[in-house]
């Protein structure tokens, strides 16, 4: 007689809680809306509960690890460490919200079973990325993420969608390859790929400095594609043709996050921050991130398509995470990591709102947004909160990250980061405030491009509630940043682990 050891199986259950519904959904006929919705929401809720249990367990000293041998000496490891919990929790929460939104958004559109199937798989892969306990596992789920996101991007099947999908693939598959080569190479040198909180490379490899630098570049290039680091960001603005829930997934929950998370993993748990510094790779990474931040913002300025503007904004914002990671110092790291959560919540709000505009009014371009705040005040209120968060205005969540980044940069003696942050905030304001201005203060046009009526409410509730919730969250995350169980507190805890041996 032996009881099931939940310490082993819980991570797998978390994975399965979206994998199985996803697979089941594939086989559902298109008309079985209720069943599909039940599966979707059931899976999402279950995952949330399981993640809750996981967090509770970790607090109570449980060590969750699932291990499965893939190759001799290489295991598929799902482990719940502090860092992964952060990402898992983020994905779980946002997934539930996004699911609600997606159900509302895609109401009545074709191929929903396919969509939601991949949707669930996408989250599965993300959770896998989050829980990966070694680089190999990370790579596996990372690549899986690439694959299952593709159908979502091309879901609409239009010419642009397919083009976007192609570009997305071109970038991500190439990136995945780079990651693969880096991983294999590293494995050859180190003989292990287990994430350890101070990095394992320094302990296991002696010499080979040049190789290690090359591997670092390969790994960062690999994950950097998804994180949309500067020369590798091209897919992200293209991918905005996808439906709003997909954009939300791409930009907030899954893809971009996975990339940023990967960079964190590589820098902290593979190389170890000290070793990365001694290799001289941290500073270039930070500079790259800084350049990306500014570049993304500048490009965003020139976009008339709302989602495209948001996409470039993501390019810029995600690099905050990278920047925080690459600046050597615990405080900056807190800023970077907490931005992982904050950016997710804020950007998902923005994309939800953009989706609402498109879905309800047919508004896609910023130039069509005149006076949209009067027609859809709730949506635009959420959008406003998100936008201010992006600008980094207090007390939104974005401010918290920015504050810590600035503080951390100074702590690490890298004052040049502050102007970057300032410049980015300025640019953010420059491309968000005009949008808000149009929406709130301009006189609406006589008619909207494609208006749909939803009765008393401005749009359907399933579309309206998610952005409101996330907007509220992004306010709350900033306002109550110091409250116990806030992401900030959690990230501080993580960083203590990474920095204190």
């Amino acid at each position, binding site marked *: 007689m032996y009881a099931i050891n939940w310490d082993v199986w819980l991570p797998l259950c978390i994975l399965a809680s979206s994998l199985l519904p996803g697979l089941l959904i594939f086989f559902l006929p298109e008309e079985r809306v209720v069943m599909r919705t039940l599966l979707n929401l059931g899976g999402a809720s279950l995952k949330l509960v399981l993640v809750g249990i996981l967090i509770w367990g970790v607090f109570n000293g449980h060590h969750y690890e699932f291990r499965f041998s893939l190759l001799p000496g290489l295991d598929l490891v799902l482990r719940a460490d502090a860092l992964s919990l952060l990402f898992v929790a983020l994905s779980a929460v946002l997934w539930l919200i996004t699911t609600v939104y997606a159900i509302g958004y895609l109401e009545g559109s074709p191929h929903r079973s396919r969509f939601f199937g991949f949707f669930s798989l996408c989250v599965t892969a993300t959770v896998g990325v989050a829980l990966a306990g070694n680089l190999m596992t990370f790579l596996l789920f990372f690549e899986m993420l690439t694959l299952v996101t593709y159908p979502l991007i091309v879901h609409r099947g239009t010419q642009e969608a397919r083009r976007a999908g192609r570009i997305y693939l071109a970038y991500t598959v190439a990136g995945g390859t780079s990651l693969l080569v880096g991983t294999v190479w590293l494995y050859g040198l180190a003989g292990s790929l287990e994430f350890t909180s101070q990095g394992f490379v320094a302990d296991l490899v002696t010499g080979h400095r040049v190789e290690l630098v090359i591997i670092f570049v390969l790994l960062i290039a690999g994950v950097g594609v998804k994180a949309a680091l500067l020369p590798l960001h091209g897919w992200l603005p293209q991918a905005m043709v996808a439906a709003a829930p997909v954009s939300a997934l791409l930009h907030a929950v899954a893809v971009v996050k996975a990339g940023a998370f990967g960079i964190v993993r590589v820098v902290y748990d593979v190389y170890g921050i000290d070793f990365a510094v001694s290799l001289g790779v941290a500073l270039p990474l930070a500079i790259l991130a800084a350049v990306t931040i500014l570049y993304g913002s500048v490009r965003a300025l020139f976009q008339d398509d709302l989602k495209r503007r948001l996409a470039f904004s993501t390019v810029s914002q995600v690099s905050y995470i990278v920047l925080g990671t690459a600046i050597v110092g615990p405080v900056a790291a807190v800023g970077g990591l907490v931005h992982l959560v904050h950016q997710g919540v804020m950007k998902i709000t923005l994309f939800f709102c953009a989706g609402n505009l498109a879905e309800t009014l047919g508004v896609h371009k910023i130039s069509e947004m005149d006076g949209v705040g009067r027609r859809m005040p709730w949506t635009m209120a959420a959008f406003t909160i998100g936008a*201010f968060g992006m600008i980094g205005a207090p007390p939104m969540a974005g401010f*918290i990250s920015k504050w810590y980044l*600035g*503080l951390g940069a100074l702590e690490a003696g890298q004052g040049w980061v502050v102007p970057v942050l300032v410049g980015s905030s*300025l640019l953010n304001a420059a491309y968000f405030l005009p949008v808000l201005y149009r929406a709130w203060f301009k006189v609406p046009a006589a008619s909207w491009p494609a208006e749909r009526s939803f009765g008393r409410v401005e749009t359907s509730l399933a579309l309206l509630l998610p952005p409101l919730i996330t907007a509220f969250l992004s306010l709350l995350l900033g*306002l109550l940043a*110091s409250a116990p169980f806030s992401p900030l507190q959690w990230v501080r805890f993580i960083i203590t682990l990474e920095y204190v041996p």
Partner: protein
Amino acid sequence: MNSALTLPSLLLIPVLPLLLAIALMLPPLRRFALWFAPWAALPALVVSLLMVPGVSVELPWLLFGSYLGFDETAGVFLFFTALLWLVAGVYSTGYFSESCSRAWFLSWFLLAMAGNLGLIVAQDMVLFYTFFTLMSFASYGLVIFQRTPEALRAGRIYIILAVLGEVMLFAALVLAARAAGSIEFVAVQSALAEAALRDWIIGLMLLGFGIKAGVIGLHVWLPLAHPVAPTPASAVLSGAMISAGLLGWLRVLPLGELALPGWGGVVLAAGLLAIFYAAFVGLLQRDAKTVLAYSSISTMGVMTAALGLGFIAPENWPLILAAILVYALQHGLAKAALFLGVDMVTAAPVSKWQRYLLIAGLLLPALSLAGAPMTSGMIAKYLLHVQAASVASFWAGWLQVLLPWSSVATCLLMARFLYLVWPRQRAGSVVVVKTRMMWLSWTVLFMVVVLSPGFLPFSAAEGLWLPEKLAGALWPVVFAGGLAAVIYWLAKHGKWPFHFRIASGDILLPVERVLWPVLHAMMLRSYRTLFKRRFLLSIYRRVGQCYSGLVFLLEAGENGFRRWAVGASLFLVLVMIFMFLAWQIIF
């Protein structure tokens, strides 16, 4: 006040307007909220009057752990700020006849109010900054409320500068927090003295808050924004919110901690420049509210100069601070009274006693601003003058000399204002229906202005009402009045030789002229067309040519392989190559 009530009452100050603002946005609650909205500042006023200074409360869950507190500075600021907001709020009920636009206006109004009141009781940088930001952005709604082209332009300029100020402040605050290792004002002020990047921090602070405070060079939004806002908004903008920047300086800058003559000189000089430059430009304006706005800049120049004095003479700081506080108070009240009065003049038919009241109501605050005898303005100027005299420094000397002349300048401005505002014809531009509340609020404010010298609790003021001191305060007013009369007479008879004018916004205009076209060009000829046209296209073509060549190669190659003779020959070739490779080993 009971200490158990400290936290709730302090919290209530910003939260009440916030809640009301939210309630206003929710249609079901709107009617209800409209009733209470004008009175949202009342708790703050009560607190400012009743609470004993020197309390502080920590809110560990808020942001990075925040502090709310109430000290003397906060007391003064809270008093006049709350009063102004209250008055303006009540005034607005009469000003806006339509409930819809009133609700719309009040939403912004309350948000800005929450920011402004909140930042006064905030005791750490982050919370302060949060409220400051709230105020800044909410003010935008007030500025562009009228939606006229001027309002929109003013709003644009305002928001650009506000955002600039925000980010500069962000940088400054981060630097300060890093230097201090804390975000509490107390800690920061003392830590800043030794901070490595002290000059950066101070510079950024001065600029960041300076935008709000209308420091010369960054003042350009003020004369644009204040006139176009609805009158109650102008009143709080010019009276209360402008002081928020000042409060920021007072809270964060290491004043009284160490002597920074360099900064002191710069700030003092800027202040002096602002006083006279703004007065000069203001005199050339043709809109009453614009003149008032320039007057604000000018007055803020005085306070800036005082700040500079504080840099130069840290040992005198407590007294300088007192002077600044008095100055801020009297300026806020008087300026608000003037702004509100502008509309009273143009408002609906007035009775006779109302007319007298109106004359008094405009004249007295104007005199107060100018520092005429028996006004709080005089007290403020006097306090400052004493401090300027006690500091031995090049710039302080200038301040001492020029301070009375600032009164002259203000006085001239006021004369210009009165000239412009004086009702010449009956065509009221604003049709006001419910004037009762307007009269009520304005009267209350006017009374406070008049009575303020009485309750200012400054010991130094005791010897103030001596004749020589009164005379010292009087001459600038008389001089300016005479000058104004002369100019008026000359102008009336067409003998005034100077006819040029400077549009409001002064130095902004050339900047705009350069900036907008550039921005427009960038926006229109966007990135894509700019770069892709020639360079990328040519590359693309070249790649295309290579590509088609490659395709041909591939096709021809594969077709070649398909031909049996070629394929089988390749087989033979491979056999031979393998054999050859083997033979190399043999021989």
